[in-house]
């Protein structure tokens, strides 16, 4: 984030109360209160891909907790803030456990469920005043000063909003933030790189509930009155609109979206009756139309769309990384070349009645490149998924570097030193090349959300980025850190994927069709890279259909057909093996397709 933008914003806020008429100060307070909630949605929805239609409920929990405690028990609002955070955190933990398992559009629908319920909890509890709510909430005081005036509250609200903004920006630009932006459960890639997606989802869900709770606390003491209405589904949807309008991928978008919505709504409420002579909620209709228009013409929202109008950075750059030197990360000791690294013993996988893998056994030795080949549907990808723990096996044993991998999940297998790439390069399109590769080093760092928000992890972050840079240089992409990963041709995307896998410090690298779709020149470069990796002591297992590529590169080949191993041996043995020729290669004199055609 640009520090300059922040300074300008802070300066504007400082002089704001002298420039704005009192009515607009109050309006600005509402904008600030909403911004704090919408900033949470930027992290949760824009970055984490988890859309919630229930944020107003968390605002309500924060507001009602402080209202009730400060009225009924005369508790200091500063104490009830923390009680409110605790209550909200507990509620978020419970609701998160119930709903975050849902995927796709079921998650937003799930959040609608508890959003509606919590509203009725407020409206039905006697002690909370039912539909009438609670009034005469004490004002805030600090160091003997009353913060009752709109101006004083303006500063308080906007200081909190700016802190929330800085925290969100800090989080997004960190190890934890990369995990948030990794696509979570929508892609097998995140878990395969060691990201605990369930935990990351829960953490950001709680954090953005806490932001909403703080907004509720401020609201209660600013209005000094609460009732259930502003914490219902309608408000939750308004927060959602603000995020969409401003741009859910940008922290500044949250503030712009909140401002646009709240001020725009105010204008429409005055202007429409003035022009039409009708009084009614026409502003809501107009906003509905605006949202549809934005989805059509500026889908990313106002801030990202306006940013596109600025002079474009050259070469599809999405970031400007300055990677300094840092103490290198600790790495694993390479196993002695020639020792058995991976042992697969009578592996079996059944889908219903179909045996996708049927009693396959083979070993991989440290420091060799092995290829797994066979016709489409022979069970090669299933084998990869079994080794990496993506799917559970039906029977058989598998051990790696002397330890059993039986029963381990994708993340645990990865933590033991096996990293894979995917058939279709699964890069995060909007992250820079360097960030994509740094995601690979996820398990080599520790820092979480709090450290990231407070920037306490800069030393570790520097080490992670330096590692990513090192691996990019290793695959020959040292000059393209800042480009958007999806702006590069497929050949380079494959190399980025390999660099990302290398950043995890693997002992065994699994490559799923690394040469598919590459042109000859790129294949030659890829083969050279893999050969170099072998020289450096890396062990590789690859699935590949390009026989030129395979036979000139690998040390040994395992051939599968119909879920069974039909051959194993050196490339020249495999190429002349009659079984393999029949099932897979075809005979040499049938080389030209034209011979069949005429």
């Amino acid at each position: 984030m640009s520090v300059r933008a922040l300074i300008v914003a802070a300066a504007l806020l400082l002089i704001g109360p002298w420039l704005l008429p009192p009515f607009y100060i109050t309006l600005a307070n509402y904008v600030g209160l909403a911004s704090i909630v919408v900033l949470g949605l930027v992290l949760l929805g824009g970055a984490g891909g988890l859309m919630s239609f229930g944020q107003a409920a968390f605002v309500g929990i924060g507001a009602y907790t402080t209202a009730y405690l400060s009225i009924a028990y005369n508790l200091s609002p500063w104490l009830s803030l923390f009680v409110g955070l605790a209550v909200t955190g507990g509620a978020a933990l419970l609701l998160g456990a119930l709903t975050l398992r849902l995927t796709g559009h079921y998650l937003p629908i799930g959040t609608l469920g508890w959003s509606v319920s919590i509203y009725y909890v407020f409206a039905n509890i006697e002690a909370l005043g039912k539909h009438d709510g609670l009034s005469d909430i004490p004002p805030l005081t600090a160091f003997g000063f009353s913060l009752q005036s709109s101006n004083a509250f303006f500063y308080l609200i906007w200081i909190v909003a700016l802190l929330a903004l800085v925290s969100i920006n800090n989080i997004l630009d960190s190890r934890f933030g990369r995990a948030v932006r990794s696509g979570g459960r929508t892609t097998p890639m995140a878990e395969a790189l060691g990201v605990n997606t369930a935990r990351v989802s829960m953490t950001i869900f709680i954090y953005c509930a806490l932001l909403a709770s703080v907004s509720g606390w401020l609201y209660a003491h600013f209005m000094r009155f609460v009732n259930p209405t502003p914490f219902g589904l309608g408000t939750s949807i308004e927060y959602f609109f603000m995020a969409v309008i401003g741009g859910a991928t940008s922290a500044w978008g949250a503030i712009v979206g909140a401002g646009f919505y709240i001020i725009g709504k105010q204008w429409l409420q005055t202007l429409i009756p003035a022009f039409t002579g009708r009084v009614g909620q026409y502003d809501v209709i107009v906003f509905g139309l605006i949202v549809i228009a934005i989805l059509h013409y500026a889908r990313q929202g106002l801030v990202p769309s306006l940013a596109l109008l600025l002079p474009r950075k050259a070469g599809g750059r999405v970031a400007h990384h300055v990677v300094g030197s840092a103490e290198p990360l600790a790495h694993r000791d390479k196993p002695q070349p020639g020792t058995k690294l991976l042992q697969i013993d009578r592996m079996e996988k059944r889908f219903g009645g179909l045996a996708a893998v049927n009693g396959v056994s083979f070993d991989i030795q440290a420091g060799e490149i092995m290829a797994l080949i066979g016709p489409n549907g022979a069970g090669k990808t299933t084998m990869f998924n079994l080794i990496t723990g993506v799917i559970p096996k039906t029977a058989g044993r598998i051990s790696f570097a002397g330890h059993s991998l039986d029963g381990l999940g994708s993340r645990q297998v990865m933590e033991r030193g096996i990293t894979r790439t995917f058939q279709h390069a699964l890069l995060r399109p909007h992250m820079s090349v360097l960030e994509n590769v740094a995601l690979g080093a996820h398990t080599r760092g520790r820092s979480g959300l709090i450290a990231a928000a407070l920037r306490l992890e800069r030393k570790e972050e520097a080490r992670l980025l330096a590692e990513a840079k090192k691996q990019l240089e290793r695959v020959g992409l040292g000059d393209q850190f800042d480009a958007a990963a999806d702006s590069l041709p497929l050949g380079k995307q494959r190399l980025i994927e390999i660099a990302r896998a290398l950043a995890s410090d693997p002992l065994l690298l699994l490559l799923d069709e690394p040469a598919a779709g590459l042109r000859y020149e790129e294949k030659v470069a890829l083969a050279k890279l893999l050969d170099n990796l072998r020289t450096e002591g890396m062990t590789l297992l690859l699935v590949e259909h390009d026989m030129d590529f395979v036979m000139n590169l690998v040390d040994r080949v395992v051939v599968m057909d119909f879920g069974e191993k039909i051959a194993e041996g050196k490339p020249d043995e495999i190429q002349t093996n009659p079984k393999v020729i029949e099932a897979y290669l075809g005979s040499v004199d049938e080389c030209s397709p034209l011979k069949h055609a005429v």
Partner: protein
Amino acid sequence: MLALETRGLTVGYGKANVLHGIDVAVGEGAIVSLIGPNGAGKTTMLMALMGLLKSGGEVRYFGEIIRNVDVEDRVARGLCLVPERRELFGDMTVGDNLALGRFSGWLKGDRDFKATLDDVFQRFPRLLERLSKNASTLSGGERQMLALGRALMSRPKVLMLDEPSLGLAPLMVREIFRIIADLRKTGVSILLIEQNARAALEIADYGYVLENGAITLEGPAQELAGNPRIVDTYLGRRQSAAE
């Protein structure tokens, strides 16, 4: 007569032009291969020819400019695209996928497609074996066969194939190219996009090289296959048993 011809074809996404004035011609009954690196704009070009993307310049289909002809109408006139990702209807059976290939004709009241279906089964006996299986359960090679079979159901005049060999085993790659070469007898004109440049040029009459959104080389396929620059970039010097 030319089955398909473009003059100065341009396509852009937003402000960026992906194709800058492409001139390509496919003669009636010919197989024309278009090779080039990823991201050169090959798939974009097929999408534009199919009418799925807005384009500038001229596209002629059997001599007639088809600028204002929409996708459904292009299908009805016999232009057919087999997309790179096959795009089968995964939750439908092989039989239903094939029947849908005939949808355009069915709309016009042509409900008898038994003969066409038999022809497809003759080319792809495997599809007959899998007739009542869901398309999503097919292997990679079978999927490509189904995609081709579904295209043939519409009795196309011009068939556009986007990387039919992608992700297939050597034996299956050869089978697919054999089938494509065999289609020549039916009189259909074929525009073939391939990464497997060697095989693509081997079965083609004429070839184009598309790089960075422009045609950089063209010529009779056998001539292109001997061009040193093509050999270095796309073919490789060694002949392999696998291809």
